[in-house]
């Protein structure tokens, strides 16, 4: 349904061109729920913006294609894109409070999208309102929330209202960019379950972007890990999280605290991601990787298939994943060699 092929996006900043997304390929099938995880600045939000046609002025698509049901999204005219958004592809942003107009009631804003796409929206207003009401009720919102102004609702209520809005035209694909980051764990769980049940109910695909693996776990069936503009590993959720192949994935999973490790010292990846201005010849993770070898610094590893179907990783030492995993479990392994 959605296929991204070798997408490269760069930004011009102070005269230099910086690659934010570097030869990224990924696919989402109908009904698939893909989580895209990575740290700030890894390019995950730029990737979402490319799909939605919301790239900043100084961004440029250097190469690659984004195909949605066979159409190239990058070649669309603004009018064609407007027709596609909400109807086929909906977007749920991080900050719902600032994405809603403060002087209109929530229901009015939700109907605006309907009005743009359905000529009969005015005539059948009550019908669409009812549909919105049903979706909101499924989202656990009372009817009065739709008649409220955005500032009268809490963060969790707003986020649920926006999700109900996103689903009102039954889109084929929903893109969520950190939609639960500002919410507490209980509300986070409720919102993520809502995403899941609505997507399942309508057979829509999901692309969920977050730096928080734990929140993605509530909704996704597959996972792609991004680091410094590139996808370093992808595959079915349960397999990637149980037996990661890429050292970065191992470190990232280590750093998610678990109750079973209460009292134990937290594990983490020392160092910081490379700045986009830093010229790095080989693997972008090499400077932080405890398993780095000479070839890692010379040649960029491609995202290649391994011994399991449906899984890929971009690591020169893919064949030694099992052995690396055992060593990666110890924080001692990650201590910097000086």
């Amino acid at each position, binding site marked *: 349904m959605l296929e991204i092929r070798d997408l490269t996006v760069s930004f011009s900043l102070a005269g230099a061109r910086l690659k934010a997304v570097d030869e990224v390929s990924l696919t989402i099938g109908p009904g698939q729920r893909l989580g895209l995880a990575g740290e700030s600045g890894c390019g995950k939000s730029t990737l979402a913006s490319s799909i939605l046609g919301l790239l900043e002025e100084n961004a440029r698509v250097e190469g690659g294609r984004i195909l949605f049901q066979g159409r190239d999204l990058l070649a669309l005219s603004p009018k064609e894109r407007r027709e596609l958004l909400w109807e086929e592809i909906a977007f749920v942003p991080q900050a719902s409070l600032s994405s809603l107009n403060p002087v209109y009631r929530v229901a009015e804003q939700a109907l605006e999208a309907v009005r743009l796409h359905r000529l009969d929206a005015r005539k059948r207003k009550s019908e669409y309102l009812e549909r919105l009401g049903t979706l909101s009720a499924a989202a656990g919102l009372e009817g009065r929330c739709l008649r409220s102004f955005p500032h009268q609702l809490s963060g969790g209520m707003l986020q649920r209202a926006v999700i109900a809005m996103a689903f009102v035209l039954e889109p084929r694909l929903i893109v969520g960019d950190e939609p639960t980051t500002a919410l507490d764990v209980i509300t986070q769980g409720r919102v993520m379950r809502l995403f899941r049940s609505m997507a399942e109910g309508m057979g829509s695909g999901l692309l969920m972007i977050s730096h928080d693996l734990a929140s993605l776990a509530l909704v996704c069936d597959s996972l792609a890990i991004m680091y410094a503009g590139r996808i370093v590993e992808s595959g079915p959720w*349960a397999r990637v999280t149980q037996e990661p192949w890429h050292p970065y994935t191992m470190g990232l999973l280590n750093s998610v605290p*678990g109750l079973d490790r209460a009292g134990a010292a937290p594990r*983490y990846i020392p160092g910081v991601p490379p700045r986009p201005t830093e010229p790095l010849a080989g693997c972008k993770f090499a400077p932080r990787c405890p398993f780095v070898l000479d070839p890692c610094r010379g040649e960029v590893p491609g995202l290649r298939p391994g011994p399991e179907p449906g899984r890929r990783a971009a690591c020169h030492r893919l064949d030694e994943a099992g052995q690396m995993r055992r060593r990666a479990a110890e924080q001692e392994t990650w201590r910097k060699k000086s």
Partner: protein
Amino acid sequence: MAKKVLIEARGVSKTFRQGLDLPWPGLGRPATRALEEVSFSLMAGQSLGLVGQSGSGKTTLGMIISGLLRPSRGQVLFRDKDLAAFSGRELKKWRRRVQVIFQDPFSALNPRLTILRNLVEPLRIHRLSARSEERGRVVEALAAAGLEHPAEVLERLPRQLSGGQLQRAALARSLILEPQLLIADEPVSMLDASLRAAFLSQLQRSRREENLSLLYITHNLVEVAAIADRILVLYQGRSMEEGPTQGVLSQPRHPYTRELLKAVPRIIPSGPPVVDFRERAEGPGEVEGCPFWPGCPDMGPECRLTAPSPRPVAPGHFAACWKV
């Protein structure tokens, strides 16, 4: 050696009123009862995790303990002395001893001052250093907070640093005053996953080295599991359970704590996530009884009538539930 109580909250309540506070009943705007009768004590060198959802009152309690808000009722004692009775001079001394780290590292430092100037400021306010030694002390503090290459960031502006680096600079700014109590309000929720663990581990290290007491405020039980000696669970302004971290996590006594524990997201799915409970639509403190009764699986008739006070369930472990 018996440990000394550093800070103690006794029956702290806080009511916020909106708009005009009119004396005639029915005319004033509605009041929000953010905290109801919360008590705890924190020993020197101990860490307490304050856990609750949005709106539970955890930040309000943190602000009261840090002196940024005054309680409507109840007292905060610092070394057995009521905060409200402090003189101006005592308050200034006290402020040096109690430092706060906020959630958003990007707005915690003055954006127009270099990192050096940001950290020199507290030294000058409290007259802790000769001018010639300031630079050295700042570098030392940054290094102690785990910032790599501290000398290189001195002349940078906050916006030139990453979130993780900024949060360490904020930690350094607190530590430079050699505080006795550090209050950290969701200090890692704006940091990336891999940086969170690194910062928590740094916080733990600094705490041990400086013998700091820590009040760690978060909505995430997993974080306090990593850092706190004791846990206090708040729900809608009331203390639900308080006890040693191990005890609360392995044998939670309050049904609300059990729900919170179930809500901890797991990376590797183990069965369907089933966490939900009804929350009443009214604001905190507006209905009589235990705040959790609408969502409680064990609810009995007494729960709807009167809110239970915390009762001991094990040594040093309390739960505010009629059923324990």
